[in-house]
């Protein structure tokens, strides 16, 4: 478990898998899946879980569930793709309940994940993608110190319009460390 101030990163186990049906049909997926609005049955979600469990393909990712300090499952934060010889990881994230957006939960989880990538896995680059419609994530990337490296024109179709796909990167020597950013953002533990 990776312990933060507002959230912990834990194995993506039963408590999270049980929520996946509701989450996959929820509004958060529109933002995390670049405009996709999945409408999926419980059986489809379970089949996907089964496929995941039984997959023999080498999977160079590290999935975490993110939960509040008193154990409420919120979503997924994880390494979606690792390229060990380039020492780079592409990360993905979603907080499913909109009530937990904007309260520092996502920032706390992201700092934990980046600390894990740099200080435990010894990576030297963290990168991720979003869409130009997602101003909340764009603000967060700038706040944490990511550089917008690539703007792929009209690579995303969301809500009936074309948007750009944005790729952000942060190098190890640009990473001030989790403690420094916690102090800069004034993140503090709070009673649940």
């Amino acid at each position, binding site marked *: 478990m990776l312990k933060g101030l507002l959230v912990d990163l834990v194995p993506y186990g039963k408590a999270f898998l049980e929520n996946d049906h509701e989450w996959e049909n929820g509004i958060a997926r529109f933002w995390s899946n670049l405009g*996709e609005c999945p409408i999926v049955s419980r059986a489809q979600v379970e089949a996907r879980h089964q496929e995941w469990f039984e997959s023999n393909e080498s999977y160079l990712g590290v999935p975490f569930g993110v939960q509040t300090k008193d154990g409420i499952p919120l979503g997924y934060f994880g390494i979606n793709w690792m*390229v060990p*010889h*380039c*020492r*780079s990881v592409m990360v993905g994230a979603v907080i499913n309940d909109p009530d937990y957006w904007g309260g520092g939960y996502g920032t706390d989880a992201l700092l934990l994940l980046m600390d894990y990538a740099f200080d435990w896995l010894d990576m*030297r*680059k963290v*990168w991720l993608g979003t869409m130009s419609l997602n101003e909340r994530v764009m603000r967060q990337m700038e706040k944490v110190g990511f*550089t*917008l*490296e*690539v*703007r*792929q*024109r*009209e*690579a*995303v*179709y969301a809500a009936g319009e074309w948007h750009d796909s944005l*790729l952000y*990167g942060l*190098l190890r020597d640009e990473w001030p460390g989790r403690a420094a950013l916690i102090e800069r953002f004034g993140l503090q533990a709070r009673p649940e």
Partner: protein
Amino acid sequence: MIEGHLVDLVPFEDDFAIHLAAWMNEEAWFRTMIYDRREPHTENDVKKYIEKMEKNKRGALFGYQTKNGDPIGGVIYDYQGDRVWKADVMSFAGDTRYEGTDEQFDGLLMLIRYCFETRNLYRLEGAALAFDTVKIEQFQRAGFTHEGTLRQHIRWGGDYVAVEMFGLLHREWPGYDSMIEALGLQSSAIEPKPKPEKLEKKD
């Protein structure tokens, strides 16, 4: 076969498959497959790769050859989206004598033609290592826009190098015939390779 101006697109089989055992261990391959770990590829790896690409529902590998049938290399589109019709495009000159020639460039144009004019894709994406000036010039000459740089992204020869990212929208593509008319591609008149031994035996 789809016939082009200097090259034709053909199935990646027969002498292409034989050549690939050597091509997959050449630098041109690793410059194209930018995330490849530069491991030695055995004949079995080559066979598996071709089989994987033949089963690939989101992409394909084609061979491209000169008008007199000399295999040059491969062109690939991959990771086609199911909702957003875009794909990554890659091309390599396995026969390095063709590196930077108009035959190699025509291979890229033929791939773009196939993606836009046959598959009706909306957007194509290309990537090139920052020092790969041939590939960068080819993307730009084909009309791609430079959309950014993935900094220090790939481990290469003891250093970390950037990846230049390019994009081309369907509406920006004037059509293959217009491109050929505008660009005036010239044949390099390279002497064809001898046919691989296995094929000669078949004949």
